[in-house]
């Protein structure tokens, strides 16, 4: 018997009510496998690659590219395979099987030499990046180049105005040096797809230029989305804040010794240790790991660790590293590189966006010693790490200079109080004093 199920617009974070279907990567009749990226969805924050959550066959595409629909709206009908192919409808729902970072994938995808911000600006302004002369040191297209192109559009004699194309198609066009205006779009409403671009590149058509003016401020949209979510957090969640200074002498010595024996590609950064400590501590103190929905706390039975990633040129996304407590440090490091590279190149996966159970912000990269965070609803806690600094420190009755980090916890008083939060920070501290243990694959409690 053949099950039929809907593939729906996923919720890619608590701040998302609707999304725009940008591109289908499959067509009716295509067989899809669980975890396959089947569509690209644009949110206020970024274009996200959306995976399907079961094997099946695409029967019908219900929504055309360019359409904005509410979260939960059926996008396509699939048959065969398992009964449900829904993407997780909301972060608080127990997630279906997830796509993890593939083992063995240690190198993050190499982004093209255009920053996500520039790409977003170009996309929003309808500027074809391939047609913009970059004034960067190696011909990179910079923000001012896009702004100039948007102001002074070179209108194609054949077909003026904006060429409808997906971000992937635009990216491919940029990579292949194809002018989008010369590409005949075969997608719905003549949208240019990746295949069209590749076909055009193969035929190596001569280039003409086409751009248009449609200046929409993507950065402002992201700022608005962050603002709305944080306002909701501060409105609804009674935060309390704790801090604890952690001596990192042992952890960093362990890290230095381990890295010394390794080539650069296999080295760890201190953030990997901090993340692993937070993930293991969340398992020890499960009251900080989960979501608060419908007036009740729902503890998560896994630790999907959100990692706040700042984007070049402003903005923030917090994709999840799945089962971070179960990953050895090498795997966690690979996953961290992957989510950061994807976040910054605008190629996050839906499964990375939808369901963190606890988020860590590591503002300490440069500068600040301490961060008092704002919780991402519907999560119930946020862990912060500041900069590692050298400070006078007494250990075993001896005053010395030690590397230390301030670990903070912002937590939800509806779920825990300071005593429980304090246990979490104490667990983080204890784990960082025993760095060898951080590398174990998360032994069962």
């Amino acid at each position: 018997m053949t099950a039929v199920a809907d593939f729906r617009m996923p919720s890619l974070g608590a701040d998302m009510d609707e999304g725009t279907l940008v591109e289908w990567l499959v067509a009716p009749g295509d067989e899809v496998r669980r975890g396959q990226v089947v569509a690209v969805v644009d949110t206020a924050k970024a274009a996200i690659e959306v995976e399907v959550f079961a094997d099946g066959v695409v029967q019908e595409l219900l929504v055309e590219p360019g359409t904005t629909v509410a979260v939960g709206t059926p996008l396509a009908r699939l048959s065969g395979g398992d009964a449900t192919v829904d993407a997780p409808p909301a972060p608080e729902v127990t997630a279906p099987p997830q796509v993890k970072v593939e083992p063995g994938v240690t190198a993050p995808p190499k982004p093209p030499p255009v920053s996500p911000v520039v790409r977003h600006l170009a996309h929003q302004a309808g500027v074809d990046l391939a047609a913009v002369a970059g004034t960067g040191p190696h011909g990179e297209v910079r923000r001012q180049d896009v702004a100039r192109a948007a102001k002074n559009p070179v209108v194609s004699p054949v077909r003026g105005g904006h060429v409808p194309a997906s971000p992937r198609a635009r990216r491919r066009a940029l990579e292949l040096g194809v002018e989008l205006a010369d590409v005949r779009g075969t997608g719905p409403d003549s949208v240019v797809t990746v295949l069209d671009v590749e076909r055009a590149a193969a035929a190596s058509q001569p280039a003409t230029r086409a751009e248009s003016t449609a200046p929409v401020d993507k950065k402002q949209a992201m700022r608005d989305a962050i603002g709305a979510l944080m306002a909701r957090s501060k409105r609804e969640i009674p935060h309390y804040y704790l801090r604890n200074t952690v001596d990192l002498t042992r952890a960093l010595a362990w890290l230095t010794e381990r890295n010394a024996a390794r080539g650069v590609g296999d080295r760890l950064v201190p953030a990997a240790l901090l993340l692993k400590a937070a993930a293991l501590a969340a398992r020890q103190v499960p009251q900080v790991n989960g979501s608060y929905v419908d007036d009740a706390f729902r503890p998560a039975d896994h630790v999907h660790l959100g990692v706040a990633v700042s984007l070049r040129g402003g903005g923030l996304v917090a994709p999840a590293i799945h089962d971070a407590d179960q990953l050895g440090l090498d795997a966690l490091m690979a996953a961290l590189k992957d989510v950061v590279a994807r976040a910054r190149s605008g190629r996050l996966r839906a499964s990375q966006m939808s369901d963190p159970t606890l988020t860590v912000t590591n503002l300490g990269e440069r500068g600040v010693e301490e961060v008092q965070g704002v919780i991402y609803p519907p999560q119930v806690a946020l862990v912060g790490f500041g900069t590692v600094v050298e400070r006078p420190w007494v250990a075993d009755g001896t005053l010395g200079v030690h590397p230390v980090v301030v670990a903070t916890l912002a937590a939800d008083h509806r779920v825990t109080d300071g005593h429980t939060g304090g246990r979490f920070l104490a667990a983080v501290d204890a784990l960082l004093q025993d760095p060898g243990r951080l590398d174990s694959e998360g032994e069962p409690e």
Partner: protein
Amino acid sequence: MTPDEARTVVTDILGRIAPGEDLTDVEPDADLRDEIDLDSLDFLGMVEAIKERTGVDVPEEDYPKVRTLAGVAAYLATHA
């Protein structure tokens, strides 16, 4: 590798890691992490790219020597 060649390699690498940043304005002796906003993963990416491009594996203990544009260029000029 001559200092000029080294500088070309470095600016090329940084152009990929920090697209959109104007490298012509970077002070040769200023900390790159401040100048073009490199975080620890970006910095590691730079060291990885140096290894790929030049074969030079900068050990962690030498990281302080490659924190600036001039520093990286000098380091590569000596080691590559």
